[in-house]
């Protein structure tokens, strides 16, 4: 049952060193504040899972938090490369990171299987590509028609962290706009934390919204602006300039570390 906590208490309660952690939010509602809190608390040796690593994983990887990365598209969307992600894979800086990569369809189906508590998902995909020899995917025959399909293993992170627009005081969560893969990530994970823009007395039902009841969530924490520089539809706007700024700043290791120390790790930052 979801407990309302401060963000530092929630991260401390839900995430341990070495855990596999999925911070999801597909181009929208990316949980930056929670990712920053992981770094402030010095979490280490994490297996980080995320379809689109985006800037938040570039920061976590650059600060050496990840021992392993599971992903499907590691770019700065609309801008170019993720330079810390590249530096880690190309030059092992600041440390070597093991990678497991998939296609989006594969990752999405892995979460679906995890949420359904099935051992694997069946799909059409991967065949004919060099991904087949580099990742966890296996051929499987349809037991009814014999058609050759592929199976991908369920993804069951120890922790899922997502950001949403609203929660009520009992910890029920509502998010709207682009829903990504957050519902699947929360239901696939063993533990979950949802940060929210605001806590309200009563959730007002919205058409097309995703609702996660409090009994599938462990912790809810208020984090207004917690998806910046991505956005929370209807509440905060996407800061495109920051994505462009990051492309410049993150090319240089020293400039990156200095920026992280000043803007994320210092006691005053984001508090």
């Amino acid at each position, binding site marked *: 049952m979801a407990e309302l906590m401060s963000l530092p208490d929630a991260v401390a309660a839900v995430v341990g060193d070495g855990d596999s952690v999925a911070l999801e939010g*597909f*181009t*929208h509602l990316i949980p930056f504040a929670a990712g920053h809190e992981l770094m402030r608390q010095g979490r280490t040796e994490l297996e980080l899972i995320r*379809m*689109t690593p985006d800037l938040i994983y570039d920061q976590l990887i650059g600060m050496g938090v990840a021992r392993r990365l599971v*992903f*499907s*598209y*590691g*770019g700065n*969307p*609309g*801008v170019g*490369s*993720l330079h810390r*992600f*590249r530096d880690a*894979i*190309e030059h092992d800086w600041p440390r070597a990171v093991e990678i497991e*990569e*998939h*296609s*989006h*369809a594969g*990752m*999405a*189906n892995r*979460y*679906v299987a995890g949420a359904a508590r099935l051992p694997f998902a069946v*799909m*059409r*995909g*991967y*065949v*004919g*590509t*060099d*991904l087949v020899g*580099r990742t966890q995917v296996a051929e499987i025959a349809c037991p009814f028609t014999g*058609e*050759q399909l592929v199976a991908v293993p369920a993804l069951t992170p120890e922790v899922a962290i997502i950001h949403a627009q609203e929660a009520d005081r009992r910890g029920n969560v509502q998010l709207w*706009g*682009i*829903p*990504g*893969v957050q*519902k*699947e990530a929360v239901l696939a994970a063993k533990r979950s934390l949802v940060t929210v823009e605001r806590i309200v007395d009563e959730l007002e039902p919205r058409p*097309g919204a995703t609702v996660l009841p409090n009994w599938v969530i462990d912790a809810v924490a208020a984090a207004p602006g917690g998806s910046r520089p*991505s*956005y929370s*539809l209807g509440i905060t*706007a*996407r800061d*495109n300039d920051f*994505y462009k700024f990051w492309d410049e700043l993150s090319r240089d290791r020293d400039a990156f570390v200095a920026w992280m120390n000043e803007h994320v790790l210092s006691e005053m930052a984001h508090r």
Partner: protein
Amino acid sequence: MSAEPTGAEPTAAEVQTVVAARRLRRAESVFIGVGRPSTAAILARQLHNPELVLVYESGTIGAKPVHIPLSIGDGELAETADLIVSVPEMFNYWIGPGRIDVAFLGAAQVDRYANLNSTVIGDYEHPRTRLPGAGGAPEIAASCGEVIVIAPHTQRTFVRKLDFRTTVGFGDGPGCRERLGFRGAGPTAVITDLGVLEPHPETKQLVLTYVHPGVEQAEVSEATGWELEIAAELRTTEPPTDAELVALRELVSR
């Protein structure tokens, strides 16, 4: 920035975008990422095909942006979409079954069978350049009705052999897509800043069918990492009209 008056000659990038937009005249729906494909699709909706359904990977189906989005997650896409779906739904219900007519894809490397690499340059374990990776491309290319590749025309991009096959075009040649069980027809055009390549109906190898205005055939051959076949009736791309250029420049300046 404000819209350039016409009269200024179109740039190679503008020609590429205009040609891509023209390819969408008869499409019902188009799957797009950000960058030039998105600009081309928005332009196509504006000029050629107002009913064209724009489908972005973020889950926005029927988005009607009037600005060029920086990200496929931009709020304008969500706010103007006919429906918004989750990532699993996008791939399992919409892309996989082949409900989308045309997909635009980019790549860092393209080979003669229009197979694509967006994973690594160099060795996989120790890449010289780590690229973003597959994203949705493998399943999009397998299942959408047809694929149009948009890429810059250089020897770095048009290579004899891919460093990594992320996405299958025609695989190893004729019959390959059928053996793999793909629904879609595969690549129908590769639109570059120099011209247009289309697969030969039998061999499935890319053939240069159009050069853009002012581009020499030799220039295209030189920029291609294999001996490029030239169509017997090589044609020159119809130059962008004033209406196309004005609309494109106005869109870009918004």
